[in-house]
């Protein structure tokens, strides 16, 4: 278990609020294997986004430590990408220039031969010169996904990237993500409150408790790959979703939407 890409060892995190400290995560230990697609689910306030920000080096844990490639994590690792819940596109840049941003900042120049195929791959043919405000929410999130993939990351951290999209579009984006993931198979940590999405995408689902977040359950999803061609609401998907749903129901907490 200690030879994963990410090893979280007894992680706790507290936020300093005006009326004292709020505990967001308590005693989280988990391992993310290299090449694994891991989903983290939990109700609002279970600290799942906090966990992702800890992995991204954007926050420092209050207790415990994170190993990345076996070494303690200090700051943001070099070969990762993050997709946020909001597309976070720079409104003064075109679609193509937004996708090129990571390459530009790392001094690789805006390699057109890498950007044009990526625009195609996320289904935005002909929109390279468009400005972000001209796109719908779903299209903006496609751009954000392309931007995360352009640097060919080893680790992709995704923080409820499709939560703001309607159900049908979310299914479409799930398939798109899986199709792209199959090509290079980076390690993915995918945070969501949608149990169905988690089961459909991931090799393994980690269920967090309400605040402060603790690991309630780890569930291996033994569905065949590639999955972007199987039915998202198929018979083999449903039992896993029900198991996770029942878990939260027993807990008496507000069940995350599925």
């Amino acid at each position: 278990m200690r030879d994963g890409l990410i090893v979280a060892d007894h992680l706790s995190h507290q936020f300093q609020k005006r009326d004292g400290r709020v505990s967001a995560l308590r005693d989280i230990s988990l391992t993310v294997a290299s090449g694994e697609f891991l989903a983290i689910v939990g109700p609002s306030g279970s600290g799942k986004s906090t966990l992702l920000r800890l992995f991204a080096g954007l926050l420092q844990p209050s207790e415990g430590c994170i190993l990345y490639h076996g070494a303690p994590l200090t700051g943001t690792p070099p070969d990762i990408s993050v997709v946020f819940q909001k597309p976070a596109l720079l409104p003064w840049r075109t679609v193509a220039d937004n996708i090129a941003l990571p390459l530009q900042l790392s001094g690789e120049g805006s390699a057109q031969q890498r950007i044009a195929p990526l625009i195609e791959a996320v289904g935005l043919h002909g929109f390279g010169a468009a400005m972000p405000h001209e796109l719908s929410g779903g299209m903006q999130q496609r751009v954000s996904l392309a931007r995360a993939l352009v640097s060919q990351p080893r680790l992709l951290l995704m923080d409820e990237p499709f939560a703001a999209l309607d159900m049908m579009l979310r299914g479409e984006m799930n398939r798109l993500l899986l199709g792209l993931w199959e090509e290079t198979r980076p390690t993915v940590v995918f945070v969501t409150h949608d149990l169905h999405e988690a089961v459909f995408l991931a090799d393994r689902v980690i269920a967090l408790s309400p605040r402060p977040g603790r690991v309630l359950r780890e569930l291996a999803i033994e569905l065949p790959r590639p999955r972007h061609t199987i039915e998202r609401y198929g018979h083999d998907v449903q039992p896993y979703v029900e198991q996770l749903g029942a878990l939260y129901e027993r807990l008496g907490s507000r069940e995350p939407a599925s």
Partner: protein
Amino acid sequence: MFQEQLHPRSHVRATAPTQRKRRVRTDWLTLPIGALALLMLWQLVVMVGDIPAFILPAPRKVAQSFAEMISTGRLWPHVGVTLFETLAGFAIGFAVATVVGYALAKRPHAERAVAPWLVAMQAVPIVALAPLLVSWLGVGLASKIAVSALIVFFPILINTIIGVRSVDQEWHELLSVLHATRWQRFRHLELPAALPVLFGGIKLGITLAVVGAVVGEFIGARTGLGALINIARGGFYDTALLFVALITLALMALALYSAVVLLERLLVRWRR
């Protein structure tokens, strides 16, 4: 129609970005028409009210005076001096305000410490400081530039702080994950994000800079449009000349403001 309702895929919603509505613009006409109407009203008031020229000269008299000032070349030194003071004052006020504003925006603790001083400074009318500045810096250009710079400082400072603070947290996190250097963060995030707000301050500042220069000239100067107003008032009570100075000032402020709007259109094309 039905097809669309059956397949509500939201990404078909956006139309091709190149198609934009073209409309015949008529709003540029409002300024000349308004000016003409004002002139006619002015003429009417002078004629009907039988007002003496030293109170309100007829537009024709002002036009004569204007023509004379231009043909003899006497107007230009005044315009040149006031324009120089305005631009120099604005440049200095802008430079100091943006640097201080950026530093304060990045350090909320420093801003809390400095804020009372800034507000107190702003509470003293800068115009009332003009006599003091003239006696400190002399009747030359320096005192006018100083008044202008001081009056420009505050709006630019506030807009810089608001602009830099307007950057979304997620954008900052994105650039952190991308290992952006401080310069890259400034160049690719903070500067473009702050520009629309900053331009609000620049528009206010450039017109205030003219006011600052003129107020400085009132206190003591031989050339400049403010000085010309003093000359027109003193002794002869040449009200027509006074109007020439006022109209020139208004045109100068308008030209400067238009230049800023043009620059804004060039630099902030992304915001509709």
